[in-house]
């Protein structure tokens, strides 16, 4: 019997497999950032051991950084300390850092792919659950905790049990105004925030295949929001084309050898998945979430479920969620006023996202009482946007193009949505307090977010494109 892509990569990275023990899996690339690494470096110090393979770990500062005036010292003392500690730790242990001010700095899951560090067939980990993003290249990539960060720093390996495999096929073609973010929000709304827990997902089907690399990254990025350990997509010409020529991508003879290997990375026709789910792209409309987990999503023209449609034991959590959001069961979201628009995060801050928004808003003006934050994923995305004049389009529309970082995705830096306010956001989580204490989040695509920026309310973008 054939193997799944996941199993091909996993098997080729198992260093030791003993009955009763988790597999010791070799890690090709380890990304670190300032929030989940200090305690791991501390652990190495306590054990008196070095970083085992310094060249296989790369660091950047993203979660805590301000997105304006990055040339000034970070105002908040604890954030500043965490970023400074990353500098000290990477220097002491010999790890490469793309810190604030570095031309490669940015959100860890944006810079890996754009620098050609993320490659097909790799195992990739980072102390951040959205590491699943890198799966778009046909890599096994997943988020880990700080104890595991320490394992990888110490041994370049991690102990893991092999997850089950799930295939999610999206067939057919997307309709106008529907983009990759809508695909993944749709899937999560169908299978729930825990529907893929215990599984590693492979995305397949015509609708996935036809996506660009950046759109594929958006899909894989949110695998964790349905509980999956990670999600991957078999590499193809789109993948190879994207990688070719990037800063750290293989060159010359190495490229040819790598390419030949990458072309073997697909799921064999007779390989078995534990679960296969199939969706039709034509059923997907622009999506929006109404609740406090990413599974609580609906098509933008649909209505929030009524209490009667739920099972009794689901009701308390559902009511708590809608109370927090200030919404009524059974109501619709179209026309609901929004206060903030956030376009950014490791889900949707790449150059294509910015281009998509710029194309849409060109010649339009933002609604008066809406604050719009556009936060590029990296210094390189920022530079490219400026080169293409996208910053000017945003300026004319009344938008604010900020500097790279995680920004309003997680309420950890200066960019927070005030209590009680509604933010339509291209990020990945609508948890209570995620964008700031008592902030209310509607997750949506960059296109839907841009439409809300123009109208000042939740809008069906299909009416404007």
């Amino acid at each position: 019997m054939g193997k799944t892509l996941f199993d091909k990569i996993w098997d080729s990275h198992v260093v030791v497999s003993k009955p009763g023990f988790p597999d010791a899996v070799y890690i090709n690339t380890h990304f670190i950032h300032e929030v989940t690494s200090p305690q791991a470096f501390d652990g190495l110090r306590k054990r008196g051991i070095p970083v085992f393979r310094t060249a296989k770990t790369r660091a950047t500062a993203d979660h805590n950084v301000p997105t304006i005036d990055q040339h000034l010292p970070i105002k908040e003392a604890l954030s500043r300390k965490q970023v400074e500690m990353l500098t000290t730790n990477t220097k002491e242990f010999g790890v490469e850092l793309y810190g604030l001010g570095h031309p490669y700095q940015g959100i860890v899951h944006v810079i890996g792919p754009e620098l050609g560090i993320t490659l097909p067939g790799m195992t990739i980990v980072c102390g951040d659950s959205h590491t699943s993003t890198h799966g778009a290249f046909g890599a096994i990539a997943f988020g880990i905790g700080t104890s595991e960060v320490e394992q990888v720093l110490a041994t370049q390996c991690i102990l893991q049990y092999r997850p089950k495999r799930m295939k999610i096929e999206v067939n057919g073609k997307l309709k106008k105004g529907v983009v990759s973010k809508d695909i993944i929000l749709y899937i999560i709304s169908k299978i729930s925030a825990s529907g893929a827990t215990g599984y590693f997902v492979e995305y397949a089907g015509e609708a996935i295949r036809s996506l660009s690399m950046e759109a594929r990254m958006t899909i894989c990025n949110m695998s964790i929001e349905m509980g999956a350990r990670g999600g991957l997509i078999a590499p193809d010409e789109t993948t190879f084309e994207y990688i070719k020529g990037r800063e750290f991508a293989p060159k010359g003879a190495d490229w040819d050898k790598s390419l030949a290997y990458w072309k073997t990375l697909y799921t064999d026709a007779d390989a078995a998945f534990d679960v296969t789910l199939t969706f039709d792209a034509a059923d997907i409309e622009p999506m929006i979430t109404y609740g406090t987990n990413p599974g609580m999503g609906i098509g933008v023209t649909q209505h929030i479920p009524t209490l009667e449609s739920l099972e009794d034991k689901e009701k308390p959590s559902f009511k708590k969620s809608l109370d927090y959001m200030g919404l009524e069961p059974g109501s619709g979201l179209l026309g609901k006023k929004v206060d903030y628009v956030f376009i950014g995060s490791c889900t949707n801050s790449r150059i294509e996202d910015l281009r998509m928004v710029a194309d849409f808003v060109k010649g339009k003006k933002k609604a008066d009482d809406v604050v719009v934050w556009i936060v590029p994923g990296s210094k390189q995305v920022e530079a490219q946007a400026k080169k293409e004049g996208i910053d000017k389009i945003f300026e004319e529309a009344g938008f604010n193009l900020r500097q790279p970082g995680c920004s309003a995705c997680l309420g950890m830096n200066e960019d927070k949505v005030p209590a009680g306010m509604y933010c339509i956001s291209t990020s990945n989580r609508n948890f209570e307090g995620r964008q700031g204490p008592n902030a209310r989040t509607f997750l949506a695509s960059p296109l839907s977010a841009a439409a809300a920026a123009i109208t000042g309310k939740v809008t069906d973008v299909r009416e404007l494109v």
Partner: protein
Amino acid sequence: MSKNFQHLVSTAVPIAIENIDTDQIIPARFLKATTREGFGENLFRDWRFESNDAPKKDFVLNNPIYKGEILVAGKNFGCGSSREHAAWAIADYGFKVVISSFFADIFKNNALNNFILPIQVTDEFLDKIFSAIEKDPAAKLEVDLDKQSLKIVATGEETSFDINPYKKTCLTNGYDDIDYLLSLRKEIEAYEASREFNF
């Protein structure tokens, strides 16, 4: 934080909410510490305290009749962010066991790596625990790691739970994964040497 676990009889703190994510367990703005200690004071921060830091009276951790070293929560506990700070906060507050009918993967690993035992039970048994505590907040639960059993002491209702044998050994003896991985140095170097594509 105690570095091993074998047996526990304790009252439990119930939070009958589903999909409790790690942003609720410890909000991002409290992730700025650079050590593993002290996160307990911000455990469930925004459910526990008003924005002016006054305790919210209706939250279970502020109700003195509920206490103990066991946290019982609705299904899909610990979803969301990979932050190990969530496990550190739970341990620092004094919990040794978390019971739910479903755990998110990364949280489960993080809990075990911090010597917190995550016990997954059926939805039905979880309901029984919630009812027992509702009836009597002083109701005790008994956890036996060796036998892999969980008992509601008052009613004698008992269930078994799964834990993988490696993690069970680690928990019982206070070993951690790095000790084991460091012992594989030779195998790791041999693996590296054998790989053509060691990127």
